[in-house]
């Protein structure tokens, strides 16, 4: 090492540098920190940063009284008490909602006698929602949710989302994104409390 000064060797001759033990301890520490950082970053792969945690599983479902989109009559959570329920949050502007609509049709036909189906319109104009239902069919009661208060009380994080509520009124779980028949059957079996379909 040189600073280009003639008496450099002499000047630095007496300087103590850290002992090998200190050097290697520091190195091991630095490597540990690096390994930790890399490990954490590596674990991040496959993680979906857009997934939102849901903490209401197993908790009593929030109650509500909302207006029906078609008749304007009130519809309250109490009307569903004692039956398992499926609540679907959707909007006409959401593409995946269009995609899952046939699944909901099929499900309502197949399970409609045993499970109460309800749709809640999320952040949409009533006209658009009605037009959507005219085009795609109305398989079950659709409710209007002013200011999306019910959606927020259910912890909605985007549409479509489908909540499965058991007969005791507790949230069993929610399905995020468009439903498939398989996913629906798995979830609905759990709230019906049965092994076979």
């Amino acid at each position, binding site marked *: 090492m040189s600073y280009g000064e003639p008496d450099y060797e002499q000047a630095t*001759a007496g300087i*103590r540098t850290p002992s090998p033990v200190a050097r290697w301890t520091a190195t091991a520490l630095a490597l540990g920190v690096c390994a930790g950082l890399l490990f954490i970053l590596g674990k991040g792969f496959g993680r979906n940063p857009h997934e939102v945690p849901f903490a209401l599983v197993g908790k009593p479902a929030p109650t509500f009284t909302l207006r029906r989109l078609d008749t304007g009559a009130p519809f309250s959570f109490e009307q569903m008490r004692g039956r398992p329920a499926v609540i679907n949050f959707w909007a006409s502007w959401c593409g995946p909602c269009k995609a899952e609509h046939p699944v909901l049709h099929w499900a309502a036909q197949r399970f409609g006698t045993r499970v109460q189906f309800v749709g809640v319109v999320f952040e949409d*104009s009533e006209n658009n929602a009605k037009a959507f239902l005219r085009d795609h069919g109305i398989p079950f009661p659709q409710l209007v949710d002013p*200011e999306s208060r019910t959606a927020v009380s259910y912890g909605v994080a985007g549409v479509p989302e489908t909540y499965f509520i058991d007969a005791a009124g507790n949230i069993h779980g929610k399905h995020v994104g468009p439903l498939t028949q398989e996913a629906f059957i798995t979830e609905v079996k759990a709230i019906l409390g049965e092994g076979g379909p």
Partner: protein
Amino acid sequence: MTATALGLTLALVSGDYAPTQAGSAPLSPELEARVQRVGKELRCAVCQGVAITDSPASMARAQLDMVRQLVREGKSDEEIRAYFVARYDEWVLLDPKTEGTSGLVWFLPVAVAALGALGGAWYVRQNRAGKVAAPAAVPPASPPAGGDAFLDAIRSELDR
């Protein structure tokens, strides 16, 4: 711009886009300030780590409306936070808790800063003047050029 042109665009726009909705009416100024303050600490559910007061998304507006509703009902800040944590877990808090494992995010940087300060002090002590038998060539005190030591210091810096 004519009304028909507006109608045309709105018709085009209304099909594929989420219609924007007005938020609920603001409360009295001091309550509204609380709404905004608490909202600033809550994460919008559909956005990328943005507070519900800062996001244009309709979800954020809905969440902020809920905060306003809870404030109107007389809930405390702590109760409002608890309401959202009960639904979205601690994830919804942009200001992490100071207890539990989240406390580490507050403690670690402070601890490292303290260690750094200690390390810096140690380094200065280790390298005090006279650490070597024959001290490195110390530039002689600059000759008194003007009598003002401060100006001399500046002069010496300029000569470098």
